């Protein structure tokens, strides 16, 4: 009966989770809002375009995106952000500047027109009596895998545990001799790489053009603000707010649907009393 809606809700939540993950990690460890997140998404999408041009497998785009995004992120952290952490409001501006630089560079090279990228999976499958896009289901799986991987990375690896220490108490971590500078660098690269990977993953669902990042950035930003720094909260926020978006779009009005996440996030942040 409501199978399609249910599938839409969970897959939308999965997509939002994938897109917001990199932003959450950067926000959690570096305490900055990376407004260049949208630009990294765009980078990933154009990685898919390049893979199509080169006639490579669409899946190779994921690797190109991850590596390319992390590399650009590395340069950005090294040249721009490193000395700005003491001025948090200015990091918002600087990352928006990075966004302009990346997006304009892409525009210069590829032009403003919509590009085509090959999709790895185009079939539909039958689930619970309805035909549904296999790719969206795969994205849900990928969201779960990414979530578990990042969780393992944070809990089980040296760098992850150190990053946790930085999240909890940066001054203490520094006093204990933790190289917070390295932690920040690695985290930003990871965040940028994940954003770029997300961009490659959503390419089959969107039309690729240089400004595709902004709406995704805004939704991801709102989800991260609501979720705080917890992976579990992000999943929950993606499910509830993303779910609301799907329901409002299909039963109400698509325009209102596109605003659902923003409006709900603003209201939640204003009136909730518990902080995360």
């Amino acid at each position, binding site marked *: 009966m409501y199978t399609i809606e249910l599938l839409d809700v969970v897959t939308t939540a999965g997509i939002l989770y994938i897109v917001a993950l990199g932003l959450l990690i950067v926000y959690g460890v570096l305490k900055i809002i990376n407004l260049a997140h949208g630009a990294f998404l765009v980078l990933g999408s154009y990685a898919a375009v390049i893979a199509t041009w080169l006639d490579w497998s669409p899946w190779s785009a994921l690797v190109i995106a991850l590596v390319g995004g992390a590399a650009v992120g590395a340069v950005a952290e090294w040249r721009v952000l490193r000395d700005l952490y003491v001025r948090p409001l200015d990091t918002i501006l600087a990352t928006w500047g*990075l966004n302009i630089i990346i997006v304009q560079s892409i*525009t210069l090279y590829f032009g403003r027109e919509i590009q085509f990228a090959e999709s790895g999976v185009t079939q539909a499958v039958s689930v619970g009596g309805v035909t549904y896009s296999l790719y969206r289901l795969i994205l849900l799986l990928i969201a779960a895998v990414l979530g578990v991987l990042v969780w393992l990375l944070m809990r089980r690896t040296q760098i992850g545990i150190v990053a946790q220490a930085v999240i909890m108490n940066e001054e203490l971590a520094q006093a204990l001799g933790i190289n917070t500078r390295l932690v920040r660098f690695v985290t930003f690269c990871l965040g940028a790489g994940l954003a770029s990977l997300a961009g490659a993953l959503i390419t089959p669902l969107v039309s690729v053009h240089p400004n595709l990042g902004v709406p995704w950035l805004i939704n991801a*930003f709102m989800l991260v*603000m609501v979720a705080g720094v917890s992976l579990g909260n992000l999943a929950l926020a993606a499910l509830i707010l993303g779910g609301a978006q799907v329901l409002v779009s299909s039963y109400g009005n698509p325009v209102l649907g596109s605003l659902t996440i*923003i409006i709900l*996030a603003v209201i939640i942040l204003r009136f909730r009393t518990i902080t995360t």
Partner: protein
Amino acid sequence: MAHHQKKDVLMTASRTLAEQIASFWRRRWLAIFGASVLFVAFLLASPMVLGEYAQQILSQAFFFAIAAITVDLLWGYTGVLTFGQSAFFGIGVYTVAIALAYYVDGALATAGAIFAAMVGAALVGAAVGWLSFWDRATPIYVAIVTLALPVVFTQIILSGGAYTGSSSGLPIPVPFLSITEWYYIAGGLLLLVAIGAYVFVSSDAGRVLVAIRENEERCRYLGLNTSRMKIHLMTACSAIAALSGAFYVLFSSVAAHSYGDFVFGTELVVWTALGGRGTLIGPILGTVGVNYVSALLGGNLPFIWLLFVGFAFVLVVVYLPQGLVPAIGQGLSTLVRPIRQLLNGGWNAVAAGAPPGAAGAAVALSSTADALGQRRSMIGAPDEAPVLELRDVGMQYGSLVALHGVSLKAYRGEVVGIIGPNGAGKTTLLRCIADGRERSTGEVLINGHRIDRLPPQRCVALGVSRKFQTPNVFDALTVLDCLRVARSYREPTSPWRRSRTVELPEPALAAVEVSGLTTMLNERASHLSHGAKQALELAMVLAQEPTVLLLDEPTAGLTRDERAAIGSVLTELAQSHRLCILLIEHDLDFVRDISTRLVVLHMGRVLLDGPLSEIADSDLIRSIYVGGTA
């Protein structure tokens, strides 16, 4: 004798006062007049050189610059980072466009539509302000709301179909004016808004905005309702942005959703940052410069130009956070310094009659004599009520209990020294008195009034003022301006007048005088020594005319002499002005010198409470301060 001296100060002060005010008013209005004449001359003369295309580009840039000024007022001066001014610009654009396209025509109706646009934007701005600024809002939250606003606006426009023109824009019938006429209108409007903004930011109210940017918490503890001020500012800036949008659409004759979208909102911030936030002229030049050049470059060049702007923006944010115009200004001033010195020499010779030291500022005593007289009359009343009463006050952070049921009464004229080892809960105790939202249990009464869950600014109104542990002054303001901001809780601040004096109650004036701040009234607070900052903050707190004064280590980091000076001020405050002083102090000798009573806190409990003479030499105090087991 002492009284006579003070009177002399007063008279000298009022004499210099008149001269200073006159000269300042001359200077401020002269600057406005000079800049206006120059700009009007440029405006009138430039069409002879500039082609129509250039005039069109500049007109557009002038309208955008008005919106950039509102970004500067909010972000540059007050510290409210906003991406949403484009939405208010857009409200101006679409209100006028829809009115002219469907409902009205004629000059009067157009003016009405512009006014309606401003009122509408002001209402939305007030709502946004109410949503964004509450007592514990983070600075990020307003960025979130103002980021959401243009997105919501754009979606509404896009979903309006033919009515709003959706994505293809809404063409409107416009009054026919020549390109040069529009150029004059745009320039004139920009000039008016810029003058208004300049008068505002250089007024007393403008100083308060900078104080909010520098240290909002201190402002709250000075009794200022900063949230309300920011809401008012947001409301006014929204109306002005809508005004520029309304004129812009009359000029361009097409309403497009891109004038209200998120990207335009960020562009306004970029232009403001490039030119120089908090300078007014910087955002104007930044906006005009970026728009002019990007219009001159044709073909594929705009993308390269935008890329260049992006790079310039990042470089400015990282290396020149004050922006290009102040940086260029500094560069020029090093070049022209020799000339200026020459000029200043001439000025000084003219002004040689003025007394040194009081240069450019004066402090006048206030006439709070009545209140003081009343207080004095209460001396020695045997059954005097406590001015401060704590009933079973407890404070818990998660599982950590910082205060266990502290009960305490304090009276006028008492100096209560609160001592105890680190972590005993001393600062927490002061926090619970100065901010009704802090404590977990119990009740605090100031002058017989419960503080309930009142925020700090409301507690100030009940008569409690708090000085912080580390000196908390407004670094970007001068000493005089800091004192003025502190006084603005008692005296309404003018949004256009700029006073060069401040009336201080006697205790605050005493603190200014004994610390030698009188000679540094025009010095920036950031340039003061640590001791002078401590004294300034004390004077700011005393300017509130509190009955209960909370001092958190007022002598930390002070020299011996400075300490003695502060000590004498505090003793005088308690004895002559009948203030009740609660003092946290680690220096036991200082506490002995000035306290009348000691309260020993340990692990969040009151261990001892009694007159100085009885407990100052007890074993307990010795063990706490010298070491050993209690």
